[in-house]
């Protein structure tokens, strides 16, 4: 039976029978997409469309949500406006050769349940860098500007922040180039920050410390399985 089982699992694109050790909760977006496809309806998209992810308007027949395997880097210290510094790493080696990555979306989730009224002039700044080689992390903090991927400032911290990392995800298909990201959230060193200096970071970082987790949703297309099948009678 185990030989047959492994052959069947292989045909389903699995190298072995999974035995989840720390199963993450199922992201609600996947539940929604799954349940929508379960509902038989005459309006069901034609088979070719079945390789199209309507929710993200991209081609794809596999959607994976990768959990972050990175760790927190030191925060605070000489750069007192820094609230959060974390290495993010997503292992995309599970994508098979025949798969085309069509979308990668980073989600940062926070656990606060209410919006805090910001202090006057309090603006947060979020930066994402391509991570330098691990041996240089300590030396390169913050990472050099040429590694900066995006900067976003915000006053109100939402429960979830989404970033399109499709091009970065495609680069990561080459494993040697996948060193992950460095996420930094700090007080913007703008007008109001001087009034905040001198206060402990925990004070003006309130909200950011409710950071829960980061995950990467990747949509990929396996052309083999989306080719037109035998002509039907």
């Amino acid at each position: 039976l185990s030989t047959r089982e492994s052959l069947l699992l292989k045909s389903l694109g699995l190298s072995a029978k999974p035995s989840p050790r720390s199963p993450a909760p199922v992201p609600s977006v996947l539940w929604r997409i799954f349940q929508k496809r379960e509902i038989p309806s005459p309006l069901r998209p034609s088979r070719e469309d079945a390789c199209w992810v309507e929710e993200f308007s991209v081609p794809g027949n596999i959607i994976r949500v990768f959990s972050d395997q990175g760790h927190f880097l030191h925060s605070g210290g000489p750069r007192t406006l820094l609230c959060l510094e974390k290495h993010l790493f997503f292992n995309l080696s599970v994508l098979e050769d025949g798969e085309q990555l069509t979308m990668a979306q980073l989600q940062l989730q926070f656990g606060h349940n209410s919006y805090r009224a910001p202090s006057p002039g309090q603006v947060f700044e979020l930066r994402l860098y391509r991570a330098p080689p691990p041996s240089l992390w300590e030396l390169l903090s913050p990472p050099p500007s040429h590694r900066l991927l995006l900067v976003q400032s915000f006053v109100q911290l939402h429960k979830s922040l989404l970033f399109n990392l499709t091009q970065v995800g495609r680069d990561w298909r080459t494993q040697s180039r996948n060193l992950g990201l460095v996420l930094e959230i700090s007080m913007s060193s703008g007008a109001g920050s001087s009034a905040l200096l001198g206060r402990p970071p925990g004070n003006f970082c309130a909200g950011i410390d409710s950071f829960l987790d980061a995950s990467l949703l990747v949509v990929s297309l396996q052309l083999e399985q989306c080719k037109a099948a035998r002509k039907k009678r």
Partner: protein
Amino acid sequence: SSYYTPVMPSSLCKSRRLYISFSDVGWENWIIAPQGYMANYCLGECPFPLTTELNSTNHAILQTMVHSLDPEGTPQPCCVPVRLSPISVLFYDNHDNVVLRHYEDMVVDECGC
């Protein structure tokens, strides 16, 4: 000389329902949904003359004729899936990632000769 033996309707080529519960095969701890899979299969005869319900190809019609003339040398046409539908499976992969995967042509809806 050709001969004609009437066939009971239940033995004609058609889809046979078979539901497999993932917990029966020990997959319930990594497959999140659905609970099981319609592993229908095609079984039954394609006798001469082929009726329209049997979804036959022109080739199959000829083959039943030849089979009726030479039952030992030429087999009956095969009973195979002619309409299939896809399924989506939500599961944990070997790295504890949550995966929603779409598999084409997985459930046999209709059979034919």
